[in-house]
């Protein structure tokens, strides 16, 4: 059978369970697609031998028992996840050759469900970026193309997005600190879920900003996202912020019935100078939900404007602490030292040559906002504003709003290199619609909902109440059905 790699997870699950196909056939189909797609820069460490071994085990398990839904499904894993014995570099030079002696909880959960790991996926260095241009491996490239330019797949989970959109794997893990799952999902026409903070364990996920980081699935459909999230999530004693809350059967909650649901449309997300296509996508999406029986209510989230500035204090502050561990002593790269160099020269040279410029910039900003004399003015003020941002959402939900609909990004994918002359703040604006969700710890999902005038995919974001991923995904499912987005990038790679 041709093109097994283009199946969705739910289609493949059904075919695996009915023995119409084997995991080995499915895995080989993905491995061939990966080998033919080096031009996309998506897979940065391939693990074909491991994949084949896991596929064979999965086929045995499928014969033997009523195996989990993900048994035999080939996935890609973002390079931010520690995977035992397999390079895990967070897209950074400073973790060159690092092969963890342990497996992250999320990837272990997937292994326990019988998934097949095809390899590690490209990303912005330490998940800091919105275009995958800060990676030590080089750029990941969007499979969508409209002219001779190469477009960004978004970031930081750019490799994951490119791999799923190009059918190199059936699904991929991503992580989202300010929009790093949802923005690349929107740029590549796929579904990306950022769960409620605490839903997925952070243990073994290389830390960027611990109070904001969450792992989530990136898939071809909402149903696939629901299946994969169910397997990734769950309480973990090794992460003290992991919630001891039951994980429901998210797929069973996809009824498509959203009658009477109250959907909030926040006025503050209507930005000055927002492209008319984004505006139209948003109003079309609103109309689709109304047609499906939802009640549309206008809401106000007054502190929205301050979310990005607050994020660019809090995230760098946490990053500067988290990245202090890269000192050239315990793991990763140590700089070559000159005779007479002491321990401080070792730290400074190692970190200077090991980190890329965006990471260094954020570590230094974080150091500054946490330093004596500025801690209150910047860091504490930002944390107070974060309290207000969360309060905005709390009040809207207390008023009976079930979910909120916004655009995912302020534009479609842009060309690689196009932002290189802009100041760093211009790049940060990519996350303007997604970052509020991380600050408030909420679940959010990006659903492909249309294309811009040049034919590039655009996404809409559904924001849910805390721990209500099931309801949020059902609304996203309804939107997916109504939008009927089924375009695929034509193969040029």
């Amino acid at each position: 059978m041709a093109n097994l790699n283009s199946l969705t997870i739910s289609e493949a699950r059904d075919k695996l369970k009915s023995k119409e196909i084997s995991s080995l056939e499915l895995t080989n189909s993905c491995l061939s697609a990966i080998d033919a797609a080096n031009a996309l820069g998506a897979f940065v460490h391939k693990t074909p031998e491991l994949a084949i071994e896991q596929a064979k085990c999965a086929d045995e398990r499928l014969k033997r028992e009523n195996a989990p839904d993900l048994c035999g499904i080939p996935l890609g894993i973002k390079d931010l996840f520690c995977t035992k014995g397999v390079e895990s570099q967070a897209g950074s030079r400073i973790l060159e050759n690092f092969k963890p002696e342990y497996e992250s909880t999320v990837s272990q959960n997937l292994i326990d469900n019988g998934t097949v790991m095809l390899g590690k996926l490209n990303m912005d260095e330490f998940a800091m970026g919105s275009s995958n241009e800060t990676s030590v491996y080089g750029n990941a490239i969007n499979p969508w193309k409209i002219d001779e330019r190469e477009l960004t797949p978004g970031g930081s989970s750019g490799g994951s997005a490119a791999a799923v959109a190009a059918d190199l794997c059936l699904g991929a893990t991503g992580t989202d600190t300010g929009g790093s799952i949802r923005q690349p999902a929107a740029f590549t026409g796929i579904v990306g879920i950022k769960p409620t903070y605490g839903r997925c364990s952070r243990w073994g996920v290389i830390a960027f900003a611990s109070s904001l980081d969450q792992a989530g699935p990136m898939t071809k459909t909402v149903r696939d996202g629901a299946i994969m999230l169910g397997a990734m999530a769950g309480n973990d004693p090794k992460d003290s912020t992991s919630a001891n809350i039951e994980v429901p059967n998210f797929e069973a909650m996809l009824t498509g019935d959203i009658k009477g649901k109250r959907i909030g449309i926040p006025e503050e997300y209507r930005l000055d100078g927002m492209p008319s296509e984004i505006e139209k996508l948003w109003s079309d999406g609103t109309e689709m939900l109304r047609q499906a029986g939802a009640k549309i209510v206008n809401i106000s989230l007054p502190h929205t404007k301050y979310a990005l500035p607050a994020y660019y204090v809090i995230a760098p502050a946490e990053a500067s602490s988290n990245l202090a561990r890269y000192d050239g002593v315990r793991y990763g790269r140590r700089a070559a030292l000159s005779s007479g160099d002491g321990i401080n020269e070792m730290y400074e040279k190692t970190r200077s040559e090991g980190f890329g410029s965006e990471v260094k910039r954020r570590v230094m900003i974080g150091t500054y906002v946490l330093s004596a004399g500025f801690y209150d003015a910047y860091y504490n003020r930002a944390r107070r504003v974060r309290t207000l941002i969360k309060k905005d959402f709390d009040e809207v939900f207390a008023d009976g709003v079930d979910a909120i609909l916004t655009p995912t990004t302020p534009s479609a994918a842009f060309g690689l290199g196009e932002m290189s002359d802009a100041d760093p703040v211009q790049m940060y604006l990519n996350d303007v619609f997604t970052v509020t969700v991380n600050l408030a710890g909420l679940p959010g999902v990006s659903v492909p909902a249309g294309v811009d005038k040049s034919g590039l995919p655009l996404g809409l974001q559904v924001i849910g109440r805390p721990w209500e991923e099931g309801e949020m995904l059902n609304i996203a499912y309804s939107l997916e059905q109504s939008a009927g987005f089924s375009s695929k990038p034509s193969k040029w790679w």
Partner: protein
Amino acid sequence: MSIDENTAAKVAKLARIKVESQDLKALVKEFNDILGFIGQLNEVDVEGIEPMTSVTPQQLIRRRDNITDGDKQTSVLKNAPLSREGFYAVPKVVE
């Protein structure tokens, strides 16, 4: 608020990142662009608002302070750039 080259050099030192003196000027500009952006936070009235410490209402989970793991010296040292006799090795730190 904006910063000068001396402050930028001090921050780089605190962050243990070597920055060559000729690169400080560009760094100062980037810093000031970002600080200008985050300066918007001064418009917000935060009087009486508590700084957020946890985004979810749950208390951090505690566990007993028991030894549950160990004897992994080889594993722990496996990724070290330099180790010797079961220790991490670093340049001399005492005279």
